């Protein structure tokens, strides 16, 4: 009989919620948030703390605004990294990952269909526009302006890093392990040329000089010179012994070699010797380009661009974004820098890939927000349950026994009322390590006071009711009267307080996490906002601030709506007046 009474007292709040439209909406919202927390791993599109990277065929264009030179990001060319580019007489070609080839003509970029699928590392254009591309695993192919492709078989599947037309009928290819191949275009025959060093260093680039000879550069400052009629290259001594990555020689004979740790070697004309020049920054330079009059450019990782006016010093130029630049292409009108490895996708606005954008470390914010619901609800419900458990029992005991018990308990409540919440939580964290336990402890230690007071005042009037007196006369024990006779009658109030305190706990948790006092290495809505504030990027990245706050708000709001309908049960006087 008593059980049925308890059941009945639990049924009433449920009926109240179902009867109130706002409460029903609140319940629906709360249930979806709970579902979000339960199914967070399924719902999130990414691992919430994983750094997301992106790849694109970055295209930067040099722009001059008065005196100010800046390399601006243009719309990227597809999503594959571009490794090499060449330009001659109105035709530009850029090649990259997975056999991607882009053609530049009359100011427009277009993607060519290719039969290739391996990553391409080198490209060189012949005077008539015929273009050789080469890349990983011995991939070599010839494109002719009529649109046809012809592939060549190499003797070994070695990576080809550099390619240059030696004359109209033969090409030089260089690659890993000091490989130098001479390809006869008509027969497709490949002749292997022997390097004078023979220590297996990688060769990274090759360029044809104005006199028809070829320059080959590679690891450890290795530089080889192949005379126009010779079959054996000779070793050249260049300043420095850093890895050399790229060589470019203009038609005028001006030349530029770039390499690791800001290595820049320049010669002003065909007769001059290679001179080492000071770089403004000792980063790895990936590619260089020099014009006929000696205007030189070099690019590297993280959007590094160096420039040198003819006869001047190298300067570091500002560029838009930290893309890894891998190659340069200079036309009559434009200066292009191309590249981009995988780069960290920082502070990306919302997109199809990242619905709520990314944070300063390139982590997916949608997934973080989804996972954040777990801590909010855990602290919300666990904290509220604990609070109501303590508060209701203290109130029940104090109200029922009265006398000294009541005095002691209520004085304790008075003391608790003198403790401000946030500072108390701060002190707790100062003394102990921040953890989920401390957060829940702080919330529950300071919120049970309200519940205790409310329940006590309710119990005070209940204990004088006839049914309690009847139970006492019938010989029921104190515990029995308290928990089986009085408690069901304060249930509506308990439910009401439970609902209110869930909301209070969620806000309290968010507040502590926002102040950086939440458990480290966990994801919570307040923690997301803490990160946003700490990074300083929240002033621009609205997609970082907005969702966690809105989620907190609708969660707490839904709980408040539910509690308002419970209020009608707890305080029937209100019902009559609505």
């Amino acid at each position, binding site marked *: 009989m008593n059980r049925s009474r308890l059941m009945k007292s639990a049924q009433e709040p449920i009926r109240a919620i179902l009867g109130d439209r706002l409460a029903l909406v609140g319940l629906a919202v709360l249930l979806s948030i709970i579902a979000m927390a339960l199914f967070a791993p399924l719902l999130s599109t990414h691992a919430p703390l994983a750094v997301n990277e992106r790849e694109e065929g970055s295209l930067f264009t040099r722009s001059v605004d008065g005196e100010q030179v800046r390399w601006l990001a243009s719309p990227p060319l597809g999503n594959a990294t571009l490794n090499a580019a060449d330009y001659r007489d109105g035709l530009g070609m850029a090649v990259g990952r997975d056999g991607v080839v882009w053609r530049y003509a009359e100011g427009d970029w277009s993607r060519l269909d290719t039969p290739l699928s391996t990553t391409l590392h080198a490209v060189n254009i012949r005077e008539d526009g015929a273009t050789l591309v080469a890349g990983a695993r011995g991939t070599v192919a010839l494109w002719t302006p009529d649109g046809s492709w012809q592939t060549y078989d190499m003797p070994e599947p070695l990576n080809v890093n550099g390619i240059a037309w030696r004359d109209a009928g033969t090409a030089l290819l260089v690659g890993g392990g000091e490989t130098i191949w001479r390809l006869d275009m008509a027969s497709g025959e490949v002749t292997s040329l022997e390097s004078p060093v023979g220590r297996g260093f990688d060769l990274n680039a090759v360029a044809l000089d104005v006199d028809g000879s070829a320059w080959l550069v590679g690891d450890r400052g290795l530089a080889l010179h192949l005379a126009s009629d010779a079959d054996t290259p000779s070793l050249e001594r260049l300043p420095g012994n850093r890895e050399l990555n790229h060589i470019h020689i203009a038609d005028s004979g001006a030349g530029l070699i770039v390499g690791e740790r800001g290595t820049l070697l320049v010669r002003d004309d065909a007769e001059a010797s290679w001179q080492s020049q000071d770089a403004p920054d000792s980063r790895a330079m990936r590619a260089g380009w020099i014009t006929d009059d000696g205007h030189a450019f070099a690019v590297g990782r993280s959007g590094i661009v160096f420039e040198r006016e003819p006869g001047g010093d190298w300067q570091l130029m500002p560029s838009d974004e930290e893309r890894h630049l891998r190659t340069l292409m200079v036309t009559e009108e434009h200066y292009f820098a191309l590249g981009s490895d995988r780069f960290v996708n920082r502070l990306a606005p919302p997109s199809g890939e990242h619905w709520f954008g990314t944070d300063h470390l390139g982590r997916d914010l949608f997934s973080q927000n989804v996972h954040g619901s777990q801590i909010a609800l855990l602290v919300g419900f666990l904290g509220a349950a604990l609070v109501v458990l303590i508060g209701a029992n203290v109130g029940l005991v104090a109200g029922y026994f009265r006398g000294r018990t009541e005095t002691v308990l209520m004085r304790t409540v008075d003391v608790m*009322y003198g403790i401000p*919440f*946030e*500072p108390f939580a*701060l002190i707790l964290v100062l003394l102990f390590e921040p953890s989920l336990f401390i957060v829940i402890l702080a919330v529950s230690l300071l919120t049970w006071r309200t519940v205790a007071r409310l329940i006590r005042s309710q119990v005070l009037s209940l204990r004088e009711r006839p049914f309690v007196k009847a139970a006492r006369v019938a010989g029921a024990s104190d515990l029995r009267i308290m928990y089986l006779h009085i408690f069901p009658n304060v249930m509506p109030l308990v439910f009401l307080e439970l609902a209110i305190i869930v909301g209070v706990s969620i806000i309290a948790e968010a507040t502590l996490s*926002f*102040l950086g006092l939440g458990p480290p290495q966990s994801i919570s809505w307040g923690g997301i906002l803490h990160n946003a504030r700490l990074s300083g990027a929240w002033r621009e990245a609205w997609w970082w601030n907005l969702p966690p706050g809105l989620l907190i708000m609708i969660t*707490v709001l839904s709980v408040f709506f539910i509690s308002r309908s419970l209020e009608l049960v707890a305080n029937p006087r209100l019902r009559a007046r609505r």
Partner: protein
Amino acid sequence: MSSRRSYLIRRVLHGFMALFIIATLLFFLFRLGLPDPTAALITEGLTPEERERIRASFGLDRPIWEQYFIYLANIVQGDFGYSFHYRAPVADIIWERLGNTMILMLPAIVLAYGVGAPLGAWLSWRRGSRADTSGIFVGLMFRSAPMFWTGMIAILIFGIGLGWLPTSGMRTLPYEASGFFDKIFTLDFLHHLILPALVVALYYLGSPLLIMRNTMLEVYGEDFIEMARAKGLPERRILYAHAARNALLPVVTQLAVTIGLAAGGQVVVEVVFSWPGLGREILNSVRTSDFPLAQASFLVMAAFVITLNLLVDILYTMLDPRVSFK
């Protein structure tokens, strides 16, 4: 009359007791959590003798009971010790920060209650209407949104987006002020006050609004309202002159409690708006392990809350003749 007086005396005594208990708890909590509070102060490479000298200069070499009584005696004299971080007396720092906090919180709370209570009364009059529903909704919405988030969004919109208002600090730097009042009686200060005060006010708005509305609904059922109606008084007069006056009591109570808690400041608002108040100071003192400052700030806040709670009880005895003095 004498029962009222003895009741008041007992309440004051209870207040002091609570404060004493909190001070004691605080002392032992700190000694428990931080066995060596000077750890933050002592730098590497000190000899044990120098270390011991520093500990002795803070009285930490004495037995814990002696430390406790010295601590209590100092508090009674208003001496809160010496801040590790600022290398200045804690009391001076705290009074200044408390002033900064109150000059932000008081206008905000007054605004919230000045708007919220009349609005709540009006909503109760129009109960069930669309205005009533949306009023409750807006009040609850700002109550549900974490204050630091509302602050951040306000900064984004009015500070950065529109550029109307400053978003950090109490004054434009650098400024010179010879004292507290010199600092705040300027247009520049008012300019800095608007945004944080509005954010706090919006958060607190829901409380008086809902309390007023619900109490009014209860009061409408009382006999004296029926009486007023029977006398043929206009509805507006019944609302404000009869019902509202009687519904104000819970609102006033809540107001006093809110002001008491305001001393602790809304730590988050002070953090978001870089307001040099007591709440932000306690956060900083926790970060820098400046335990004398943290301890004293907390005690001052607790004293404030207890005093205001006491004031509520006294107010009750004066405003509501039905209160029994048990």
